[in-house]
């Protein structure tokens, strides 16, 4: 079961699973800036988004009846997160209401897609809402 995947296994998965996202050049630079402009806070304030770039692995589950998804893991790039949301770059379009698990080195979180915007070919920006609120240090650890 995925819930029992420990830190080492998550790290191995993230290293092993290829990421098919093709980030365009002009986005590459914006991905390099990390942190939060507002403060050096080590905890989320209301509405605060923290910019961070992390390789991650996504597992889709609970797909929609009309859009079945193959089982398995796919590489992705976490772009930012807030207390209850996450921005992720993915290689294909996902639909609102699709459910997924995002495996970071630090933690595995469950989330629902609420929006998807095309950035470029093989690069889609997903807006996720997390199943529960997280603390910044849980996500960054």
């Amino acid at each position: 079961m995925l819930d029992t995947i420990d830190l080492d296994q998550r790290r191995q998965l993230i290293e092993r699973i290829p990421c098919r996202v093709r980030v365009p050049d002009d986005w590459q630079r914006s991905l390099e800036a990390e942190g939060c402009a507002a403060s050096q806070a080590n905890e989320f304030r209301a509405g605060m988004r923290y910019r961070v770039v992390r390789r991650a692995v996504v597992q889709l589950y609970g797909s929609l009846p009309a859009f079945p998804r193959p089982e398995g893991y796919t590489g992705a790039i976490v772009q930012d997160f807030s207390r209850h949301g996450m921005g992720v770059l993915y290689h294909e379009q996902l639909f609102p209401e699709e459910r997924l698990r995002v495996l970071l080195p630090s933690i595995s979180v469950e989330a629902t897609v609420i929006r998807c915007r095309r950035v470029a070919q093989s690069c889609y920006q997903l807006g996720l809402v997390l199943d529960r609120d997280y603390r910044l240090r849980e996500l960054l650890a």
Partner: protein
Amino acid sequence: MSDKKLIPISLATLEPSDALAWDLYLLPRDSNQYILYRASNYPITSSDLEKLVASGITRLYISREQRASYQQYLRDNADAWLNNSAVPLPERMETLNQVVTGSLSESFRKKEAVERVVGQSSTFGRQTAAFFAAEPILFEDLVRVLQHDYTTFAHSANVCFYSVLLAKHLGFSGDDLAQIATGALLHDLGKLEIDPRLLVKDNRLTEAETREMQKHPTLGFRRLCRQDDLTAAQLLMVYQHHERLDGGGYPVGLTNDEIHPWAKLCSVVDVFDALTSDRPYRTAIADDIALGIMHRDANTAFDSEMLTCWTRLISTSDAN
């Protein structure tokens, strides 16, 4: 009976029956005095109906309060009156439009459960597709009977009829036509969750209001996406009908082949109906001017083959 309390119904929609639920009135030729023709719960036979037709009567009248009951009767008997070739085509088309807009307006206003709206749309989708597949329907006949106001249900019904007409001429199969009709009826369902004040605002929307309005494809998709009686293509009509080929659309910004063909088709007739209907902030634009505007966006917003086919359909009608 005062004429203000009566509404006309098409004789063609009545089936011989042991009893109808409403009193039927008649307006004799050369008279403006309505008379009771048949009291409710009194049988009406096929020879009664034939005699009326023979005497040149095409309409009877019922009390306005009984409109809902008559609408229900029309829904229950749609297969019979739609396929009755003795009734002129425009009359059947007009009745179909009244039934579809009447039912949609009812269920949209009541915010009925999504399962019921989908079920009802599927029935109308199937009936509309079968009717359009069987009859030589022309744009000019169709456009005459449609209501061109800005209400979501009138627009949805128009987009349904236009979509089926275009899909038929593009060579889609009968099964596809029924599914396309249903998807088109549902394409703007998400607008039910948008502040109604935005839908009727009589001047330009602010940036924030535009962003709010642009949520409707996603809202509609979220509402419908767990319905296992809808196909992926139908859901994509709801989700992608505001995408543009050049990637400048919403909600995703997809391009060309990433947009489902049914969504591209929906987009052509959706914009056409929007331009040629009265809106709170402007009056309707003539068909040829609307097409001129749309052709500027051929290949950037619209699939040019579909737009050309739609233009040809309209031009043929104009020539007639």
